[in-house]
């Protein structure tokens, strides 16, 4: 019962529709794996529809639709339904591909398309030549000798294997894709790391800023290569109209593989570097100001920070110096191009090029609580006291209200690299190729049947009747049939037509009497007696 329900295509459609609605939800609601910060804002009510709605969203797993149990259950149900639907189809297809032959036509002249002409050949020879011709045109054949149905005939069919086979291939490609996706998830690895110009990192799990390892990914799977960022170049179209669209973005790197091989390469967007089957992409970047903080003449912090760009064009980072007493924390904003105005105050432009960098700091004192997990680039100011705010130019130094000094001696940049291992992309590509390879014949292969019957004429030669039927696109078949008939005539050495359009003028009752005349009837031909639906009797011949 449940199985029967599952095998219906309507069921699959309903499941697909529900999946579609979920997907739509995932377009509108931010997804945690993509934009965790936005989701956090929605949860806390800072953005989005409010905390109450947010809780409802959480109940339904709306922040991670593709990881939610509901989604996975539906996917499972869809694949069960697909399987339930495909098994009988495959069986039927296999049977028909091996044994299936087109049915003979009991009443050939009552088919939708009929043409007759005379041939100088005997009926047997006509049938033999027809078989050769239609086999060459990729038809599957069945022939009957005289007696079986009165007269001998050839029945031919094409399109069925490509159409149904294509459709099956298309649906089967989903399994390939599913295996590729799931296996890829389990064994893949994704890690992001920021590297300051002139420094590097080693491929170990501690080195990454963030990682998304697959469940079957272990520490041992890291290949321990080392990467040095030799030079990082970035430039923009320096025209405010286009908002500083990047025009150059590339990184020169030197990689030392685990076996000691050293390679240099340039990574740019769309051109990742491949190391041991892992792709290294250049995805992010920021400024890396070196900041020195002194407290009472003692240096409590000297380090290069990795500032990230924000919506207003500033680059934000934080300094956390627990060496001072009490701890010093700086919230730092770097404005790359803030030239001094008329009166000497900096003019913030929001442009990303570092023509006139300005560091704005807000200094805090108190307990930084560094024993807790924190974002390195953000200062959590709860429980801290604001001491002073000030700005520093590159190469300058500023003294804050409490005597702390902040210096900004150097500005370099960092590049955000992503290391990814996707072991199943080849499989997925194959699945996608199967999908397309199946889809095209499933939609465009048309199933057609043709029958040819020759009856020996006592005066010599034979009378040939050709009939045809289309299962899809009958309108196009009219033309195909009109092309096939002259071809057959030629093959059967029939007396050629006088002109290509001759048969249009031939009256239906010329049929069989005038050797030169061909009558082609089609639904448009106005043969009122020809029914539009074939009689069902002839179909029984097959079984």
């Amino acid at each position, binding site marked *: 019962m449940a199985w029967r329900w599952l095998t219906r295509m309507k069921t699959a459609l309903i499941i*697909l529709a529900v999946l579609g609605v979920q997907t739509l939800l995932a377009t509108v609601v931010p997804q945690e794996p*993509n*934009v965790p910060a*936005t989701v956090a804002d929605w949860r806390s009510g800072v953005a989005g529809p409010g905390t109450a709605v947010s809780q409802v969203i959480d109940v339904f797993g709306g922040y991670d639709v593709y990881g939610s149990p509901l989604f996975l259950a539906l996917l499972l149900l869809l694949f069960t339904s697909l399987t339930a639907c495909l098994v009988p189809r495959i069986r039927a297809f296999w049977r028909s591909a091996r044994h299936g032959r087109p049915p003979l036509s009991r009443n050939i002249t009552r088919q939708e398309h009929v043409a007759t002409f005379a041939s100088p050949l005997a009926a047997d020879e006509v049938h033999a030549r027809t078989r050769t011709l239609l086999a060459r045109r990729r038809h599957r054949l069945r022939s009957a000798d005289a007696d079986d149905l009165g007269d001998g005939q050839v029945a031919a069919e094409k399109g069925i294997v490509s159409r149904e086979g294509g459709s099956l291939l298309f649906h089967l490609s989903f399994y390939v894709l599913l295996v590729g996706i799931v296996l890829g998830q389990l064994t893949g690895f994704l890690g992001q790391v920021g590297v300051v110009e002139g420094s590097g990192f080693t491929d170990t799990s501690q080195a990454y800023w963030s990682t998304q390892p697959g469940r079957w990914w272990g520490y041992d799977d890291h290949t321990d290569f080392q990467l040095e960022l030799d030079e990082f170049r970035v430039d923009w179209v320096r025209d405010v109209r286009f908002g500083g669209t990047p025009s150059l973005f590339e990184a020169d790197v030197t990689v030392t593989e685990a076996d000691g091989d050293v390679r240099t390469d340039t990574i740019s967007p769309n051109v990742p570097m491949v190391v041991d089957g892992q792709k290294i992409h250049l995805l992010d970047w920021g400024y890396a100001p070196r900041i020195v903080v002194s407290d009472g003449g003692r240096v409590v912090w000297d380090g290069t920070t990795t500032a990230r760009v924000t919506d207003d064009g500033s680059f934000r980072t934080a300094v956390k110096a627990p060496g001072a007493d009490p701890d010093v924390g700086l919230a730092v904003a770097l404005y790359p191009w803030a030239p001094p105005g008329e009166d000497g105050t900096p003019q913030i432009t929001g442009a990303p090029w570092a023509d006139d960098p300005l560091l704005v700091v807000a200094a805090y004192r108190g307990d930084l609580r560094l024993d807790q997990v924190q974002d390195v680039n953000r200062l959590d100011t709860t429980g801290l006291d604001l001491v002073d705010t000030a700005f520093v130019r590159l190469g300058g130094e500023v003294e804050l209200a409490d005597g702390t000094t902040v210096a900004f001696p150097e500005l370099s940049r960092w590049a955000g690299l992503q290391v*990814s291992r996707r072991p199943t992309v080849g499989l997925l590509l194959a699945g996608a190729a199967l999908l397309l390879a199946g889809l095209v014949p499933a939609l465009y292969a048309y199933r057609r049947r043709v029958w040819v019957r020759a009856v020996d004429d006592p005066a010599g030669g034979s009378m040939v009747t050709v009939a045809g039927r289309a299962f899809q696109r009958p309108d196009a078949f009219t033309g195909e049939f009109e092309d096939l008939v002259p071809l057959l005539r030629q093959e059967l050495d029939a007396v050629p037509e006088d002109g290509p359009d001759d048969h249009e003028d031939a009256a239906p009752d010329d049929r069989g009497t005038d050797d030169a005349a061909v009558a082609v009837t089609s639904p448009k031909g106005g043969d009122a007696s020809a029914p539009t639906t074939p009689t069902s009797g002839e179909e029984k011949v097959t079984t």
Partner: protein
Amino acid sequence: MTQPELAELSRFLFEPLALSLLTVSMVAYLYAMSARHVPRPDGTVATSGRRAEQAGFVLAVLGTIALAAHIVVRTLAAERMPLGNMFEFSTIIALTTVVVGLVVVVGRLKRPDLMGFLLLGAVLTMGAALLVYTEPGPLQQVLGTSWRAIHVSAIVFAAGLFTVAFVFGALYLLRDTAERHLRASMPGGSVGAARAVDLADDDLGTVPQRTSPDTVEGDVAELEEQFGKEHRRRMRAAIDPVRLAVGTLLGTSAVSWVFWVEGLRAGQDLFGSGFTRFVTVDIVMVLAALLARWAVPYLPSAATLDAMAYRTIAFAFPIWSFAVITGAIWAEQSWGRYWGWDPKETSAFLTWVAYAGYLHARATRGMKGRNAGWLAILAFGVLMFTYYGVNLVISGLHSYA
């Protein structure tokens, strides 16, 4: 010529030139459609219809040339392929619609009576493009790869084909309503006698029941003769204009609200220019629907329209599939992940599912015809949301790499 001059010329070629040529051509075709079907008292058909059709054809060709020239000049102005932003996508969708109309619908299928509506679709797409007009400018470097070019051109081409299919599908539903009404009111008529014709496959071995399209058209042609003006009145009366208008308004609003929200997001007043856009789009679509209602008696039979909608979607669907696949390849190359469920990917997938649903509905007996027709409309709504909603609103919510 300098870049700004080229930019100005490309803008001129688009609007007013191409837009007005295509609009006038649309009017000519719509007029021709009506004139060719209305018999004079002496039984002949007015020749003005034929002349209007010829004029419409010439104007459409000129408009197409202007639109193509616009794209070429814009390419020169921006010094890159014009496949970088929504304005450019819309332009190519409109071009696809007109070219498919001229080459396939008018040229091959000999259906000039549908050209007016295809031009309407193209003109509306161009109008919507002006709502998101962007000066020609450089692209982000990440977009400069040949996978992107393949991906984007396939997406945009398929979207153009889906637009054509939407026109056919919407006209089918209207025409079908009118035909049913007519048949039901005819003595001895039976509702639902006209069935979709070609199309969808039967299961292995069984024989489809079908009527030839000509039988249906023959019926209607007969009716036409029988009833003339009265017949046209009754066909139109079958469609309640208020319901049509309200339905179109609601359906359009399901997508067009994004213009309003975009305006609000940009800090406009509640009833600022975003609101004006929202209302304008709605009103234009309602007017288009009422125009289609007026044209119902002149349209090809419902079965023909249905078949054309199906064939167009069946043609576009593999192209869309290909586009989504190349998108994933590009994402893998650019970002190291082939699929990240970001809103754009999600909605492209959703559009794919919606059209796959339509193809399935066509293949299932008992779901043919109107239900499938509605699914085609819904799928186009999903496509439009993918296109306008995700670009204008969702990516404003949280932007990605």
